[in-house]
């Protein structure tokens, strides 16, 4: 007993020291929260005081980091503000911001696809920004993607969607209509060769097939989504589900298709048409060279099929202490000149009206095809409830592939999505 208590005595001594430290930290935190003392006090005198450095989180991709480095170096030259860059994968940024933000170690700007927007807003991690006149340079699609609850939440840097890549040595021209696509799938699929491959077990890529005949994810009124109105089990969606099922049950597309399988077959010249995005281009060009062609999605019932459009944007952290300058930096990084630099170095399409008509983009047949498709697509819903859609919808596609009744599957899926939205605490 005595030994035990002695031990505790030793512990308390050191805990006292430790806790004293943490106590200090917490009081620091309080001061900044109240805008009370020390460094943070200065910011109240004039918000636009130039900060020494701005911190940004860049997606973990060599080309992108290179491009952003070049752009931010220019910014430092012009304004004298140093830019501190951290490479953090886009998929990890939200969770990391949630942890680092409150402790003051977070960035001023971070880089996210717009479909995470609702999630960021609900958690209170992002701040709306005022783009001022700069807003007019962006395409309407990009601005509407970045709009949530009536505010704009970032400066669009990249717009991306998927379309068709085709192998010119296997077909003369890209299919213009759904029927042509079906014909290609029928005729070219045999003995390990495929006419048309797409990740139709992934809702992101399957969406055009639902949207064509009239399906939708969430009903939209005046630019806001109504999450109680889910259109994945209406007549159009069920018809689309039936079409998707045909691809699988007829053996046109293997059930367990995944990017590796699809890219492998296409690179080996065993698939005529694949549906994917510009991110697949480097690998395909290496494998097929001049035989590689690209086209927007085919038409169904006389209308281009709607793909999901994603906008990646610089967003402002709500923990940033230099919001005005951070906004200035995000405008600078996405202005016409720098968006072009970014396109040239990183190969991602800029969502600026003038640039989409720029010769550099129009004269590149592959980029032009995807740029064109962005006009027909619609932004992914950015409401947080969308997070509850991906997995059940993806599962529904698996059930369709196994030949389950489309109507029953889609109705069940919508019910699960509704349950999950309810269970997620909205």
């Amino acid at each position, binding site marked *: *007993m*005595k*030994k*035990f*208590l*002695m*031990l*505790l*005595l*030793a*512990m*308390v*001594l*050191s*805990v*006292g020291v*430790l*806790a*004293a430290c*943490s*106590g200090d930290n*917490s009081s620091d*935190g309080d001061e900044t*929260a109240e805008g009370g003392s020390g460094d943070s006090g200065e910011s109240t005198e004039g918000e636009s005081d130039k900060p020494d450095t701005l911190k940004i989180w860049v997606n973990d991709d060599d080309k992108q980091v290179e491009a952003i480095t070049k752009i931010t170096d220019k910014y430092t030259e012009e304004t004298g503000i140093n830019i501190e860059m951290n490479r953090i994968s886009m998929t990890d940024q939200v*969770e990391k911001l*949630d942890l680092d*933000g*409150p402790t003051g170690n977070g960035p001023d700007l971070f880089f996210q696809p717009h479909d995470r927007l609702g*999630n960021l807003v*609900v*958690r*209170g*991690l992002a701040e709306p920004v005022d783009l001022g006149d700069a807003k007019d340079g962006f395409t309407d699609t990009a601005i509407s993607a970045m709009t949530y609850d009536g505010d704009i939440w970032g400066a669009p840097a990249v717009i991306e969607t998927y379309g068709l890549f085709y192998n010119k040595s296997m077909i003369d021209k890209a299919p213009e209509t759904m029927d042509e696509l079906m014909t290609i799938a029928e005729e070219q699929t045999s003995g390990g060769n495929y006419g048309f491959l797409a990740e139709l077990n992934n809702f992101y890529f399957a969406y055009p097939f639902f949207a064509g005949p009239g399906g939708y994810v969430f009903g939209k009124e005046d630019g806001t989504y109504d999450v109680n109105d889910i259109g994945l089990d209406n007549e159009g969606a069920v018809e689309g589900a039936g079409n998707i099922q045909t691809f699988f049950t007829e053996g046109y597309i*293997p*059930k*367990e298709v995944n990017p590796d*399988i699809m890219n492998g077959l296409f690179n080996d010249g065993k698939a005529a048409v694949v549906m994917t995005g510009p991110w697949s281009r480097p690998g395909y060009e290496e494998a097929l060279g001049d035989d590689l062609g690209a086209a927007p999605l085919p038409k169904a019932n006389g209308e281009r099929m709607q793909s999901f459009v994603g906008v990646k944007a610089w967003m402002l952290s*709500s923990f940033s202490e230099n919001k005005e300058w951070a906004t200035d930096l995000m405008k600078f990084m996405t202005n016409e000149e720098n968006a072009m630099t970014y396109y040239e170095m990183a190969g991602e399409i800029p969502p600026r009206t003038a640039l989409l008509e720029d010769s550099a983009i129009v004269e590149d047949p592959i980029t032009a095809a995807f740029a064109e498709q962005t006009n027909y697509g619609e932004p992914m819903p950015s409401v*947080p409830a969308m*997070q*509850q859609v*991906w*997995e*059940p919808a*993806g*599962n529904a596609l*698996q*059930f369709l*592939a*196994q030949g*389950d009744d489309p109507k029953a*599957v889609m109705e*069940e899926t919508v019910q*699960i999505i509704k*349950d*999950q939205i309810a*269970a*997620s*605490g*909205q």
Partner: protein
Amino acid sequence: MPQPSPATKDVKQKDHNVKLATILSLVFAGLGQIYNKRLLKGIIFIIIEAAFLITMLNFIIHGVWGFITLGEVKGEDHSIILLIEGLVSLIVIAFAVTLYVYNIIDAKRDARLLAQGERVPSVRKQIKDAYDAGFPYMMVGPGLIMLVFIVVLPLAFMISLAFTDYNLYNSPPRNLLSWVGFQNFVDLVSISIWKKSFLNVLSWTIVWTVVATTLQIALGLFLALLVNDERVKFKRTIRTFLILPWAVPAFVTILIFSAMFNDTFGAINKDILSQFGLMIPWLTDPTWSKVALIMIQTWLGFPFVFALFTGVLQSIPRDMYEAADVDGGTRLQKFRFITFPHIMFATAPLLIMQYAQNFNNFNIIYLFNEGGPAVRGQNAGGTDILISWVYKLTFDTNNYNMAAAITIIMGLVVSAFAFYQFRKTAAYKEEGEM
């Protein structure tokens, strides 16, 4: 230490009041010790309590307030940070209370000794005694404190989350959390979507743990006995080969298996089973997926058991078998009454831990098929075990509170395994008094 040593006084302290010493220490740590003429000890206690009150009181009051309310102003109070500060406060309070109680007991004991006429030892002797008794603890202490903050604090944080309403729509800094009691556990077994998923996942987790682990142990045992037979030549080479599945990183093995089991393109269907006109839906049918997983785990797990048993088999005295031969025992009897009990006696705790490991074997489930394939009408995949489901809940749908509640249930199961194992292991038996 300027005071003259009281040890020179050769006076019986019959009138020394035990109660008074206790009450003095109760009022403020160290006063009783001063009264007992243990000045150094008293001063140390006084300094500790004073330092504690001056430095920590605000932090503790703030921490306890944060822990109870989880914040009161939206956007300004960050519930998660308040919760962690609250837990730190509670730990500090626990230390302080322990020390305070120790100081009272100490004062009472010293006073009693004085009242019985013991002499107060010299300061030097006091220091020496304290050092002798306390030295091991001074060595172990810092590490133990680190342990409290590295292990206990995160654990307490996780357990706390299970009793809050922390999910995507209710997350700091925008919103405040609040305590909801056992609501999450109630939801788990009452709300239909949770209930169905939870029961299915739990039953598969148990089946998976029992079947996969038993199979890998059985295979390991069988092979160990086979290779150990004196009629087998090239023992060393065979053993080396059998250890190989263990030598290749499991990560790599699982990913390769995942590709091999692919329904259309995988080698198993395409090159082997198609010869017999079979095409088994390994990745798209939940039952076959489970079969594939159990086979892969057996493959990954048997070498360890094999190596373990091979070692134990060497240590069984040969004369036992000779005695059995004299008595005319059959091979089966020898195995049943000599080999098997020996092996089990030596390795039972390790085998128990194998079960616990598979219970939480996230890698294989996630890497093989991400818990898939999907199952109609539930939000967990067909091969999801509890831990991979928790992962999905946390990172895909931000149901932090539910994830924490399920984690507690998993923790209880694994601790039951661990508890059983420690009970069996001599290493944890206390020696001496405590």
